[in-house]
């Protein structure tokens, strides 16, 4: 072997992989060819550690129009000749280095995945994780990421309608920035990432190519790093104005049948875009790098092929019809250049001014070795799960003080500080804006609505990846059901540490298994996704954090619910329980346990039968117009859920359900326990009988908690707090943590 270990490290290739390349190629690759392998055989592009596990997802559904993983994003039929295209993708590593541009280009990348399929982007969501805001670096990253999403997203005219954010020391060295985009198209407008038949032309459109982002896929996203400052030059800089023009021009061009396929240039730039399109079509490609417009002089073929300059798309055009496609891009003042063609020989051939610079069979590049490394659970976890939470001392503070503390906690406090920086109204389809359980968009020209939510609880997945994976799916779909929509599809972003460590691979394997099981049972297939591994610094991995984006559909968008309590006298009902339980085991992995006791312990649990039944009862209540409000009980338990309903409605409630045994002794578990599959709804008193019928026919337990009333939230003799105080605590949480209380 004549290659240095240093060169291989730069490309994140192992010596074993290098030997495999030499053997399959029948010779040593030149540096350009090795660069192609390094990018495409990376975890980011090749899914080497995750692909064998992703097969667990059952994608059988009549609604799927393309096979998951085969295209830039998943495509879901929603009836009436329309389909939804959706995907979530990570930009964790770039955001850790340069938060503004990292997050901004994360938005840009996921939006390109959507319009590459011929769909108009109609919604953005984002799922974020940072270290505690008490740390100045975490504050810097958080504010930079929010500014980047705001700066890019607001400029391109796609509403940012939801998402979530959590803070934990587990993410201090390695924030998570997952961006989700949803688009809509008519079936006949669907475009594929294919190169079509031999003889088609490859047209590069949009921005010029520079030296930014080289080794982004192989380097940043596929290895763990010690010093991030060294990597700053590998982060790209976004131009949202050009992206907006690209959206319009590509959608206009895609209406022509002269366009055979469209690919966005993301990780590994031109290399992955062209090789994936060729592999999908079973053809070869020939690219002359001299025809690629540059923003810098003296770039080597290697740099041109691996540049991750933003706002570029590869369009496969029928030969002879390039003028009509180029006319569209001319009209938008965008560059379009023919840089190559598809060939019959199955070779990826790179030329420079007609001179050959590299030749590799496409099938070798698109067939990386797959790994199934050892999987062993971390030995300390069993003890954490077995912790006896009933032995936990009650806090010194009163129930009311504890509730206010939770409402102020950055993990529960109002997200208004974030989403008021995002345009969530543009396109005028936003029926439920950020701040509710799920966003709701109407589909113009129909009576239907789309509900969207993202969820993922790293703490629960850390304690038990299998249960945590099921809960992530359970909660995301529950949120969609709370607004009245039926969950029909999921997209996921799997954020984990290094899969080469057995305890991390164990997390990955089990979280996927849990998600797959819940997805199958809830009949919401995973239609697309992204894997982000090596999320660790200095040998410490993040919490295993699968983020689930759920898509729901409702036939009548007018029949929807929000958490907001409506009128005094409305009856408050808890779906999913027959009594107010005070089981200390429900504190497992809860926000209360972490915030008040500084512990992450216990056994997370979910009963999928109950989950399915509760969601279906909630949807029936909302769609029939009986439910005047609906809200999921999640972080902070039922007390926080009730407080959020009261704050949103500006009216109190008196909860007088008989306390169950032990509620006095374990009021913390009764108020703040995070048992799954619980939804708080309100109905008018005359509708209570109908609620009972609906719950009984769905075999769902329910409990009358009390009624909407007055200016205070009263929970038995445990607490009485004015709603105005709850609201002030909730609203002040994030600004206070950022040191900018207005």
């Amino acid at each position, binding site marked *: 072997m004549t290659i240095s270990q240093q060169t291989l490290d730069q490309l994140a290739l192992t010596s074993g992989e290098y030997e495999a390349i030499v053997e399959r190629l029948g010779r040593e690759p030149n540096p350009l060819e090795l660069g192609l392998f390094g990018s495409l055989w990376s975890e980011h592009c090749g899914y080497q550690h995750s692909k064998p596990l992703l097969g667990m997802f059952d994608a059988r559904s009549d609604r799927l129009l393309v096979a998951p993983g085969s295209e830039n994003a998943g495509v879901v039929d929603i009836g009436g000749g329309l389909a939804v295209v959706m995907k979530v993708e990570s930009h964790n590593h770039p955001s850790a280095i340069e938060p503004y541009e990292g997050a901004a280009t994360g938005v840009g990348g996921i939006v390109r995945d959507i319009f590459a399929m011929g769909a108009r982007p109609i919604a953005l969501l984002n799922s974020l994780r940072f270290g505690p805001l008490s740390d100045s670096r975490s504050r810097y990253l958080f504010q930079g990421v929010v500014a980047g999403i705001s700066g890019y997203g607001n400029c391109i005219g796609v509403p940012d309608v939801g998402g979530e954010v959590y803070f934990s020391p587990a993410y201090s060295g390695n924030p998570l920035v997952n961006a989700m985009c949803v688009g809509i198209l008519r079936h006949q407008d669907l475009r594929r990432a294919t190169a079509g038949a031999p003889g088609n032309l490859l047209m590069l459109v949009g921005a010029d190519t520079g030296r930014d982002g080289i080794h982004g896929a192989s380097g940043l996203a596929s290895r763990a790093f010690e010093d991030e400052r060294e990597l700053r030059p590998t982060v790209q800089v976004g131009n*949202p*104005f050009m992206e907006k023009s690209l959206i319009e021009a590509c959608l206009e061009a895609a209406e022509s049948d002269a366009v055979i396929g469209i690919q966005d240039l993301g990780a590994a730039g031109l290399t992955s875009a062209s090789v994936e399109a060729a592999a999908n079509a079973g053809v070869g490609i020939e690219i002359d790098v001299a025809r690629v417009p540059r923003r810098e002089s003296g770039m080597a073929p290697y740099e041109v092929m691996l540049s991750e300059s933003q706002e570029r798309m590869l369009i496969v055009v029928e030969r002879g019809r390039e003028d009509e496609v180029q006319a569209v891009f001319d009209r938008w003042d965008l560059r379009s250049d023919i840089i190559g063609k598809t060939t019959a020989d199955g070779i990826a051939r790179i030329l420079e001014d007609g001179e050959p610079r590299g030749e590799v069979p496409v099938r070798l590049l698109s067939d990386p070795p797959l790994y199934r490394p050892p999987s062993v659970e971390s030995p300390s976890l069993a003890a954490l799960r077995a912790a006896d939470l009933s032995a936990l001392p009650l806090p010194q503070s009163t129930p009311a003080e504890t509730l206010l503390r939770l409402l102020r906690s950055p993990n529960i406090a109002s997200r208004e500080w974030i989403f008021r920086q995002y345009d969530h109204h543009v396109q005028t389809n936003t029926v439920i804006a950020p701040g509710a359980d799920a966003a709701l968009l109407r589909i113009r020209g129909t009576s239907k609505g789309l509900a969207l939510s993202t969820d993922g609880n790293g703490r629960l997945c850390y304690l038990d990846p299998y249960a945590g994976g099921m809960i992530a799916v359970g909660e995301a779909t529950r949120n969609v059901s709370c607004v009245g929509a039926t969950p029909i599809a999921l997209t996921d972003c799997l954020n984990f540490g290094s899969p080469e460590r057995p305890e991390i691979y164990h997390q990955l394997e089990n979280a996927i298994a849990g998600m797959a099981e819940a997805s199958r049972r809830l009949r919401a297939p995973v239609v697309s996704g992204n894997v982000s591994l090596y999320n660790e610094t200095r040998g410490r991995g993040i919490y295993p954090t699968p983020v689930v984006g759920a898509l729901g559909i409702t036939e009548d968008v007018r029949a929807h619910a929000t958490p907001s309590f409506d009128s005094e006298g409305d009856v408050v009902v808890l779906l999913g329980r027959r009594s107010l339980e005070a089981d200390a085991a429900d504190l497992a992995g809860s926000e209360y346990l972490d915030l008040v006791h500084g512990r992450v312990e216990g056994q997370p649990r979910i009963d999928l039968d109950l989950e399915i039944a509760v969601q279906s009862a909630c949807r029936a209540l909302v769609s029939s117009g009986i439910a005047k409000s609906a809200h999921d009980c999640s972080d902070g338990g039922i007390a926080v859920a009730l407080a959020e309903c009261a704050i949103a409605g500006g009216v109190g409630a008196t909860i007088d359900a008989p306390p169950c045994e032990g509620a006095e002794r374990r009021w913390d578990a009764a108020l703040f326990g995070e048992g799954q599959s619980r939804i708080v709804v309100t109905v008018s008193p005359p509708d209570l009988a109908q609620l009972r019928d609906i719950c009984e026919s769905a075999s769902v337990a329910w409990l009358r908690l009390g009624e909407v009333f007055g200016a205070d939230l009263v929970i038995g003799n445990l607490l009485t707090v004015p709603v105005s105080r709850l609201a002030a605590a909730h609203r002040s949480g994030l600004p206070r943590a950022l040191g900018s209380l207005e």
Partner: protein
Amino acid sequence: MEFGVIVFPGTWSDADCFHAVTDRLGQRARFLWHKDTDVSGIDCLIVPGGFSYGDYLRAGAIARFSPVMRSVERFARNGGLVIGICNGFQILCEAGLLPGALMRNDHLQFRCQWVSLRVETERTSFTSQCRRGDVLSIPISHGEGSYYADDATLDSLEANGQIVFRYCEEDGEVTPASNPNGSRRAIAGIVSAEGNVLGMMPHPERCCEDLMGGEDGLLILRSIVESHHRASSVDSG
């Protein structure tokens, strides 16, 4: 009547304005590309929101030089109705069709939220369906919406009744807390001295149906239609 909706590269409220005018108001509309110059047959021009040409230099600074703006200026000088919304307001100020300028929000962040607007005058072509003192509920969505003009200009705007909308509390009181961007004298919208050009930062096209949170935007759009019909009947009479 027929509305013309101007489209610059980077404009994103064009489709929303088109939808509001056609589907909600029942009027005709057509898009005008930034390189177009023919505005014949148009009764009211809408300069919509967005980030024209990216607005990297200063909001509206490039758009004012585009070919279509020559036609907008001519159309306005001839008394045609022009409404600039958000980025459109910024562009009309840059083009000198309205006095003053829009600066970065005083807190330096983008703001997307519902605000209350007090109608300061009903004696314009854009507010004839409102009454002075009415409080409208309308969304804003901008990073550079802080209205600035010198004292003399502001005094003359006040004296001439050119201040059309002010940010206020729900009850109509103008307070520092109800000003979302630091605009001088809480100004959210003004008209030209001749009264035919309106600029406003909030988005009336985003509140034209209850499902989207409110219909107050229709009051402004319907005022335009009413003014046009009144003017047409005077002409023909």
